[in-house]
């Protein structure tokens, strides 16, 4: 039995690795092969053909695509992410501090959103059909139906414009005290938490409700078990796989969320860096940022998959 679990886990890791290769392939080819000549972008439309040709040579742009892809991959593996087109700084240097900022934001959000969403999702399933459940359900539908920037603008309107509790924009370099920290992070974290939790609550509730409809939960009910017992003792252990999956999927929603939130609150993270890079068509920077996000996403999903395998009682 144990060997089966290990081999399944290894299989998941392998799939993740293959996926990562396909993804990097997609990212590279989307940016490097589609119309728009890099040399022309760098030098501007007015550059002489000779200058462009020189630059193409210097950047190996005339090599076949597959060679360039392999060279780029080799660089990534060795930690060489290339040099930014826009300001000639190495991409690694540009990203380093930014990545920490984004991780802080994501970590803070996750540490609030996960417990909150699990509690709300599980209790909503436990008291299914009650007013409480209906309020939670309607609220989450509402939240996942609107764009993140709307949640952000509404939060600003409420907390900064009408209540005047918080500043509308955040600047991490001004943090001097815990109070400052609260004020700086409050808006982005609140916005992200609302969006991420809504997703997670919906999926958690659905996973628990599905297990509540099984014959073994009915059997437990006929043994005289209370509702909390039905949910916590009988449904939860079996819903663990789907719940972990929903947590991972919702956290990956964070990736989408931070792009908007960092932009709107002017937060110096990787996502903001990437949006700026897209405006300036700074390809090496875009590629690296994209790979970082994909790696984060894949790590989460694969971890969830492996936890789901481990939690399956049939494989114990």
């Amino acid at each position: 039995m144990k060997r089966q679990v290990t081999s399944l886990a290894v299989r998941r890791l392998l799939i993740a690795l293959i996926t990562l290769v396909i993804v990097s392939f997609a990212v590279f080819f989307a940016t490097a092969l589609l119309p728009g000549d890099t040399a022309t972008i760098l030098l501007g439309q007015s550059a002489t053909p000779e200058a462009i040709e020189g630059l193409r040579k210097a950047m190996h742009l005339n090599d076949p695509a597959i060679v360039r892809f392999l060279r780029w991959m080799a660089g990534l593996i060795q930690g060489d992410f290339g040099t930014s087109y826009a300001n000639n700084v190495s991409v690694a240097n540009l990203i380093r501090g930014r990545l920490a900022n984004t991780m802080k934001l994501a970590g803070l959000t996750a540490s609030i959103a996960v417990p909150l969403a699990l509690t709300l999702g599980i209790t909503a399933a436990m008291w299914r059909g009650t007013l409480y459940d209906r309020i939670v359900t309607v609220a989450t539908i509402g939240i996942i139906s609107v764009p993140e920037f709307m949640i952000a603008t509404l939060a600003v309107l409420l907390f900064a414009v009408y209540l005047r509790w918080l500043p509308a924009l955040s600047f991490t370099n001004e943090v001097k005290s815990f109070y400052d920290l609260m004020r700086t992070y409050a808006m982005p974290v609140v916005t992200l938490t609302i969006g991420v939790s809504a997703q997670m609550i919906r999926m958690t509730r659905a996973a628990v409700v599905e297990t509540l409809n099984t014959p073994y939960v009915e059997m437990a009910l006929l043994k005289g078990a209370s509702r909390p017992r039905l949910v916590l003792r009988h449904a939860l252990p079996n819903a663990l796989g789907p719940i972990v999956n929903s947590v991972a999927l919702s956290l990956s929603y964070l990736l989408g969320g931070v792009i908007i939130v960092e932009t709107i609150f002017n937060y110096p993270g990787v996502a903001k860096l990437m949006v700026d890079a897209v405006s300036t068509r700074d390809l090496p920077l875009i590629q690296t940022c994209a790979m970082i996000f994909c790696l984060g996403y894949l790590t989460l999903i694969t971890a969830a998959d492996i936890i789901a395998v481990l939690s399956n009682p049939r494989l114990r």
Partner: protein
Amino acid sequence: MTKSTSPGRLGVRFGYRFNLIGLSALAIILLWGGVAVFAPHIIPHSVGEIVDTDYFGPMSRDLWFGSDYLGRDIFSRILMGARYTLGISLAAVSIACFSGVALGMTAAVAGGWLDSILSRFLDALNSIPSKLFSLVVVAAIGSSIPALIATLSVIYTPGAYRFARALAVNVNTMDFMVVARIRGEGLPYLIASEILPNILGPVLADLGLRFVFIVLLLSGLSFLGLGVQPPYADWGALVRENIGGLPFGAPAVIFPSLAIASLTICVNLLIDNLPRKIRDRSAE
């Protein structure tokens, strides 16, 4: 303990049951559809015309939703914006779902290496977060309207594929598929005549859901300034243009957001309250 409520209750017609929430949601969606089609004929002011001396003006009898950062009528701009938001999203979702569903059914029925390769490749694409994917593609090919439609449909094809394939795989295990196969039927018949009728309902619901995702992604892109480009403006772009009015709580920021929310929430509500076929044998 009343025996059987009357069958003449709201929405029970033609053997379908449709509740009030679903009907209202459908009405609002149709209203936006109508607005998108007839926008040029119903806007009170031209979208480029500066009609207010003030910027971020308040709501008034003439300018229902106030004015924008240049003093243009925001109501007219929202009505025109419906064309871009709905048009681009609808085009993208149609392409994505058509190709996704066609590929998904083929993979499920054909099985073997075709299924493995398609699934592995499309699942990998599916694991690139959509916003990120769109940023990368926009960086590469720009954000003209055809480019946006192409980008959005490419991003959402893998999801539609995965959904349709999962459904088709279930149908494929049914005995009637075995019967049809052993009768000697070919792939086109199996797909079009045996599988499609059985997955059509869920596929349409999924199309609605995917439409919501696309509207949200398009709005997000436009909000970042990477979507629909001036002089055109969809709802996301309207929020971006007028974000400067946020500190004053200007209606110009709020109403475009509300327009998006009204559309996406209604589509979600419609899907949750779709008309249900009544299978009530004792009623016959």
